[in-house]
């Protein structure tokens, strides 16, 4: 059974429809990469999955059970096991790195503060930022902030992690450190949906690639097939355009 199964998802903002029936799934521990041109709806898929944008049709099932996004309790339960990291890190600017990591486990999961802090320090060490616990977000580089954001999501111990272009806002020399963090994560058995334009990275880490265009899935397949022998002309054109630089 798929860990997360998305079937015929339809969604939009206000009146306009952005997703026109998106379907794909990810097995437990699998890394699935969403690729496609800007505006094709990749971020929207992730936003719908975590309940930030409502869907008007289709279903998302976790372990075979459809999530009822209209029920706040169901969304709350979902968010205890699904985390998301955005392109712009979005750390809480008014608190230190450690407080960013401790807040939700304590307030949402009821973890004792001392235990949450110990776990937060472990996570910071894991992303290579053990010495930044007392810093404020704006004292860190973009790459460091992004690693904190990943650690913050992990502090909730999710079994599904959504990553939306987490390296897109970074200086080129900072991209590597964040990719390294994600690479290490992939080996922990967490299921990941990754939106990324880093094709080399996608190829290396993803077990499956989903090519989106104009709110639909154009093609799905293992990276080797998708990159070297796409069956759809749209995929081929996109690969050609993006691999040129």
């Amino acid at each position, binding site marked *: 059974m798929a860990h997360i199964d998305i079937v015929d998802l339809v969604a939009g903002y206000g009146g306009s429809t952005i997703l026109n029936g998106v379907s794909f799934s990810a097995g437990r521990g699998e890394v699935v990469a969403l690729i496609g041109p800007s505006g094709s709806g990749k971020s929207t898929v992730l936003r719908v999955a975590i309940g930030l944008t409502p869907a008007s049709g289709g279903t998302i099932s976790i372990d075979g059970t459809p999530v009822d996004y209209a029920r706040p309790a169901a969304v*709350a339960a979902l*968010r205890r096991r699904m985390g998301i990291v955005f392109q712009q890190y979005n750390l809480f600017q008014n608190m230190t790195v450690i407080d960013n990591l401790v807040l939700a486990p304590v*307030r949402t999961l009821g973890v004792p503060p001392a235990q949450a802090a110990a776990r937060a320090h472990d996570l910071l060490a894991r992303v290579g930022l053990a010495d930044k616990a007392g810093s404020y977000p704006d004292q860190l580089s973009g790459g460091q902030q992004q690693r904190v954001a990943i650690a913050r999501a992990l502090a909730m111990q999710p079994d599904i992690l959504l990553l939306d272009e987490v390296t897109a806002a970074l200086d080129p020399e900072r991209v590597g450190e964040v990719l390294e963090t994600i690479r290490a994560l992939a080996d922990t058995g967490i299921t990941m949906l990754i939106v990324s334009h880093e094709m080399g990275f996608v190829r290396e880490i993803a077990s499956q690639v989903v090519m989106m265009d104009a709110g639909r899935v154009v093609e799905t397949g293992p990276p080797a097939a998708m990159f070297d022998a796409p069956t759809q002309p749209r995929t081929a054109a996109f690969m050609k355009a993006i691999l040129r630089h």
Partner: protein
Amino acid sequence: MSAFFSTDTAAFLAGALGRTLWMTIIGCTLGLLLGAGLALLRRTQLRALAPLRLLALLHVEGFRRVPFLVILMFVLFFVQAVAPDLSLLGIATLAVTLTASAYLAEIVGAGLDAVPRPQVESAQVLGLSWWDRLVRVVLPQAWGVILPPAAAFMVMFVKDTALASQLGVVELAFSAKILVNKGVSPLLGYGAVLLLYAGISWPLGRAARLLEKRLGAHRHR
């Protein structure tokens, strides 16, 4: 009481000063609380709260478009109909609260909106409750934006409370007139009141600036 330099005059002025301060500080503080409530209400999404959101909108837009003097009269007649025991000072304070809440709702709202929406969404997907998002994430970042204009509003409103004299509240401005009518020289009477107004505004402004500095520093310690 024709002699200005007497304990009677001092007590009289102190009473008037007290009433001016009361109207300003109590009125604006209650106005800030009510205004914050209105600003938060207007930013809710729940469909069930739609009628309340409309009321909040009418309140904020309405009270900002009517002169304070008219609001004073309106509150006077309304209160006399439903709670005839309320003092004139109470009525004036209520008018200040209602007026201040409309302006402060806009100021608080601007502060809330200044906190980047994605940060709030991050708090949301981390499962934080509405209250936790507000208290732990939004307000600590909004205060620095809210406080300077809110304090400026309050300092400015000190002067507007003089209109309560039209209701018969013996506040500072009215007290000067009374003193002069009793034979105190206008220079002394109005001069004293002028100094007292300046004496309120200045420390209020300073306190606000200090608080602002401290809140601004809180981010970096």
